[in-house]
């Protein structure tokens, strides 16, 4: 038997990373291994969020890590992506928390907020003392956010918000929500962002129970009943759908790295299992049918990583086009889900046990496949980009 070569060694991705990036990767990897993985299965099983880890995530600089100033770490896109990949090696729920805090709650304030808003909220959010969420999706407006029903009406110096948001990561534990609402009668160009704070009358965030995916991350609704939001809590620098969509572009970039972490966890688990599990007198790793599946996983992981790195390097130079991020998110989450499902089947009966990380990642990735632009929406974005024809 020849000595096996690890996938990392095979694709030699290290040669494409700086010393600093490797150190970020190693640090977050160790953090996840020591602080999260021992509890990952239990948190998932009990539908619990590891809120006690928030101060440690903040201390590491993982909240708003890609932003600059206001106590944020100012990581490069690739370092940020690598960090999220390691978090998602732990659990997609853990990574989702970081993505939402940084890209969906902090980013709009950092990008479109007034200086007073930035000073007031960002340092506390970077420290994890203030948890944020992002209210865009509604029960009847998911892929078509322009059809949102939530309205903001000016009343004196306040805005009065009414509506309901759904599928909101972290809303049950949040101290503030960046809520997107129409200020006109129906035109998406009238969409504005509002910082709604815990304690404002009429602002409720009921938890959604019964999820079989992302169980370690709290998901809820945002219910707005005549919530009076002072004028100074409106994001002054953005109008229209471009506001929320630009936040999603930031988050989706991180997800295209993150999903690879979940896929790699499945690959590592199934590779070790295949070497140990003996059937018909041989380890299943010595079976052609199994090798074919392992090789498929390895190839997709390698291609996904190289693509994520490519777009990460590009993002160091200039903003990515939304379609570029769609390409990377759609591909990497799609292959991650496929890898997780294949790993699940290779583990056979063991594949349905939480004792192995595979079923947990597989179930989590069903959400990642659907949220932040469904797989289908990314197809339509790319289809439109390539043909010039809208097929929405």
């Amino acid at each position: 038997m020849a000595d096996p070569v690890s996938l990392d060694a095979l694709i030699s991705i290290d040669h494409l990373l700086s010393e600093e990036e490797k150190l970020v990767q190693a640090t977050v990897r160790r953090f996840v291994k020591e602080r999260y993985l021992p509890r990952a299965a239990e948190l998932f099983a009990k539908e619990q969020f590891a809120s006690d880890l928030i101060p440690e995530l903040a201390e590491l600089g993982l909240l708003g890590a890609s932003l600059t100033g206001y106590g944020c770490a100012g990581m490069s896109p690739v370092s940020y992506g690598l960090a999220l990949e390691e978090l998602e090696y732990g659990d997609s729920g853990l990574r989702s928390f970081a993505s939402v805090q940084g890209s969906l709650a902090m980013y709009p304030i950092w990008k479109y907020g007034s200086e007073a808003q930035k000073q007031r909220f960002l340092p506390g959010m970077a420290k994890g003392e203030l948890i944020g969420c992002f209210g865009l999706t509604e029960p009847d407006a998911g892929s078509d956010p322009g059809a949102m029903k939530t309205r903001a009406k000016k009343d004196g110096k306040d805005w009065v918000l009414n509506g309901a948001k759904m599928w909101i990561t972290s809303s049950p534990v949040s101290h503030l929500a960046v809520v997107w609402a129409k200020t006109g009668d129906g035109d998406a160009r009238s969409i504005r962002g509002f910082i709604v704070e815990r304690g404002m009358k009429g602002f409720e965030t009921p938890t959604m129970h019964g999820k079989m995916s992302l169980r370690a991350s709290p998901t809820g609704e945002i219910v707005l009943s005549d919530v009076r939001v002072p004028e100074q809590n409106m994001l002054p620098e953005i109008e229209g759908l471009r506001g929320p969509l630009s936040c999603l572009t930031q988050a989706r970039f991180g997800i295209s790295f993150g999903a690879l972490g979940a896929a790699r966890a499945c690959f590592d688990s199934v590779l070790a299992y295949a070497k140990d599990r003996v059937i018909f007198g041989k380890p299943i790793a010595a079976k052609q049918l199994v090798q074919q599946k392992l090789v498929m996983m390895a190839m997709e992981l390698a291609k996904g990583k190289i693509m994520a790195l490519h777009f990460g390097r590009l993002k160091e130079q200039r903003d990515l086009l939304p379609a570029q991020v769609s390409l990377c998110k759609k591909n990497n989450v799609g292959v991650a889900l496929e890898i997780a499902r294949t790993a699940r089947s290779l583990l056979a009966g063991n594949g349905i046990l939480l004792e192995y990380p595979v079923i947990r990642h597989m179930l989590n990735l069903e959400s990642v496949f659907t949220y932040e632009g469904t797989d289908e929406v990314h197809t339509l974005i790319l289809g439109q980009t390539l043909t010039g024809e809208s097929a929405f």
Partner: protein
Amino acid sequence: MKILVALKRVADPDNANKVKIPGSGDRVDTTGLEWKPNPFDEYALEAALRLTENGQQPKTRAGEVVVVTFGPKETETTLRAALATGADKAIRVDATDDQLDGDLVARALKTLVEREKPDLVVMGKQAVDGDSNQVGQILAELLDWPQATFAATIEEEAAGSVLVGREVDGGVAKLRVKLPAVVTVDLRIVAGASVYSTKTARTFKYNEGVRFAALPAIMAAKKKPLTEVKLAELAADTKLKVTYAKFQAPPARKAGIKVKDVAELVDKLQKEAKVL
């Protein structure tokens, strides 16, 4: 307090089975191995950082930690990681493992200690590759400093000494060593209540283990000083005292046997293993 910490990069002990010895038996083949800091040296760094801060305010340094390693250019990664974790400056002594033995490292460290003038030298009790367990002891002898090895606890004392706890058969031996001194550390030094500077309240408990480098600190580490020194500058005589005659892999373990019941097990333990 100023502390010098000696760090060694070793082949990842989790992949010890990948270590290969060529047919010639004249060396260990290190190609393809992954490298990590020696775990005991990481504990030494953690201990040194705790001794140079108030545990409640770890971001404010209250002393200086200088890390030093002996190795080729790639080992600067190990030093950068130490700087990101909190060390203040780093020195790389340019050398490869085959140019070094415990005696030469200790002699070169002696010169570095004379240059840097630390109050304390802290290092792992041994490196997990060669497991020689010599450098700290030889260095203390060369410097004519007191030493405390296999430390499980260190308390800084106001009178210019440290109180070191060593786990021995039947209890803990406490040694009071006057500074300057050499201390080598064991695994337990990273427990929550193992190391106290005079600034840290005795009621304070650290997180167990080696601290994590924060991401901003990783970026800031690029700006911390890292200097290179030639081995010959530190030791006039670079001849090795330890020469290796031959390398040989341990014999492969034979597969065990399965017994069908307890009676058979007891029988074999009595008659074959003769341990009962």
